[in-house]
């Protein structure tokens, strides 16, 4: 007689596509992605800052360099990365001290992270373009 109490081994399938994540999960993975972007860009930021502060000519060169559309586009992406990382980071600091850990609050704060970081990216991006 077959053992009816034994658990059948069923295959597990998790859909791990970022598009399938709940909003707080999307904030989380983008926090990681933006952090990685910013780390990789660190050397570039230092290069730009060094050049712009070095001399009058260096400042002019930096100005011409960041005027290039591709550079501007990259800086816009990094601006988003910084703002997302900033807003999501503040959310995590609040979660650490038990603020907004309930599901409705966590969802609302995830919306806020996206809304604030995207609007600020658009505003600052337009101002700096």
């Amino acid at each position, binding site marked *: 007689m077959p053992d009816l109490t034994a658990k059948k081994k069923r295959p597990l399938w998790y859909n791990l596509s970022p598009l399938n994540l709940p909003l707080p999960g999307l904030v989380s993975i983008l926090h990681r992605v933006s952090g990685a972007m910013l780390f990789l860009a660190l050397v570039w930021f230092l290069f730009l800052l060094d050049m*712009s*502060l070095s001399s009058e000519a260096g400042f002019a060169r930096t100005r011409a360099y960041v005027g290039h559309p591709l550079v501007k586009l990259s800086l816009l992406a990094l601006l988003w990365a910084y703002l997302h990382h*900033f807003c999501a*980071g503040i959310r995590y600091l609040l979660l650490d001290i038990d603020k907004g850990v309930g599901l409705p609050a966590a969802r609302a704060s995830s919306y806020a992270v996206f809304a604030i970081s995207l609007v600020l990216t658009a505003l600052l991006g337009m101002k700096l373009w």
Partner: protein
Amino acid sequence: MVKRIIVGAHYGLSGWLAQRITAAVMALATLVILIGIWSAPPLTHAVWKGLFAKWWMWLSFCLFSLSVMLHAWVGVRDILMDYVKPTGIRLTLEVLILLALAYYTVWAMQILWRI
């Protein structure tokens, strides 16, 4: 229940704490630097350099630079621990990243001391 005797290692607590403290420092420094740039006249080299020579801008930038290196180290290490399983490759990457961050720190201080 996990039977684990917590002794010796810190199980990442100091890294976790450092990441939070540096985050708070950078958040404040970001606001200070942003206000500084915002209130500056149209940027020329002299204005730009003078901006960083102001003590509160200089200090914010200095604290930001030191914080970002520590913060990035904890974050990148977390990413490597999650995705890079072979110990040899992970250790190699960790050493390379530590060296890079050490270099960046010296570079940032060099920029600051030249102002």
